[in-house]
């Protein structure tokens, strides 16, 4: 087996869970997430000789985002709304499941771009400039989308959280 293949397999095994998790946060569907993460890795493999010395994980994240955006452009999809479900309260054995269910419902209430920005910024910890480059939008737009998304999600932001608050957004 070529050494490049060994390197890729190591990379893919390590990166797959996070890619799949991100895809799950973006799609809300297990199978779609699995397919999207695999597709991202397939395309990363195809470009491996070119990107392996740079930042292959950044490349895989970008491919994943583009792939899911393409899926959203297809005719059948769910539409975002402004109503976010109430947070589940109390702790019990099913709390984790309930919290994740709430999270998916809340993310589904965001627009596609808000959801992408929120997941890229706060799950992948990507800098705003990198999110802007991946999505092909201005850094200011990333900041606005992030703030609006967090507001809808009822996430409070402190001054040192490095999030631009847009006018009219309550904290």
């Amino acid at each position, binding site marked *: 087996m*070529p050494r490049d*293949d060994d390197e*890729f*397999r190591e990379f*893919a*095994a390590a990166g*797959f*869970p996070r890619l*799949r*998790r991100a*895809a*799950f*946060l973006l799609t809300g569907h*297990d199978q779609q*997430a*699995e397919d999207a993460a*695999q597709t991202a*890795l*397939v*395309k*990363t*493999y*195809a*470009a*491996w000789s070119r990107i392996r010395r740079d930042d292959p994980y950044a490349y895989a994240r970008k491919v994943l985002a583009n792939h899911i955006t393409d899926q959203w452009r297809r005719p059948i999809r769910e539409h975002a709304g402004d109503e976010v479900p109430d*947070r589940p309260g109390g702790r019990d054995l099913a709390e*984790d*499941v309930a*919290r*994740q269910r709430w*999270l*998916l419902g809340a993310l589904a209430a965001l627009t596609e771009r808000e959801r992408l920005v929120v*997941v890229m910024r*706060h*799950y992948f910890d990507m800098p705003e400039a990198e999110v802007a480059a991946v999505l092909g939008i201005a850094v200011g737009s990333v900041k606005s989308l992030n703030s609006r998304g*967090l507001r809808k*999600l*009822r*996430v*409070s*932001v*402190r001054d040192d*959280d490095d*999030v631009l608050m847009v006018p009219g957004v309550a904290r």
Partner: protein
Amino acid sequence: MTDLEGFRDLLRGPAVAAGGSVALDEIVRRGRRLRTGRRVAGGMAGLAVLSVVVGGGVTLWEKTSFAGPAPVEAAAGTWGPAGTWGETVETGMAQRGGQVVLMLSFLKTTGMQSVGCFEAAERSVSGCRSVADFTERTFATGFHAIHAPGRVEGMGELPVFGYFIGPVRAITAKADGRTVTAQLSVWSEDADVTLFWFPLDEVSPEAVLTDWAAFGAGGKPLPTGRARLDVARG
């Protein structure tokens, strides 16, 4: 309300989507195919078209940007290996026209094709015959572009040969009731592509091959694809 760190924890939270495991072999296989397809498409984007007379008619010969000898004027039914890509495979079968060698090439109109030639001592290649596959399924798993056994005038016999896409470890067929095994050579440009041939001392040019089969690691049967397997002497 929740704070930002709490929200980030929630994003990272328990693996609701758990259950699947990374299918590395499948990912690598699809990645190789995609990479090969891109290379072919990239090569085709820079094609220069030359005309070569074949069989009395004019065929458009696509000289690709891939490394390979320049196209040559050829007698009817034979032509030079222009557009070949990757390393030539030496079969070790000596014929009057030289050692039988195999390679792959591409034509814009027909896609990937397997090519068999005779290579003389000075490494000049001539007396080539090729079988093309259709572009739209040229990278599907299974057998492709199988050449029937046939004599090239003044050169000798070419064996049954072709290429297989997929993780193949063995290829067999039946010749006159006997199970025969093909020789394999992984293509230099993509480990998912394997050139194969049945040596003439095992499969005579007159034999009809049936019951084709391909096996992966551990003897696992592989899909044979949609190629025509009822090859008869050409």
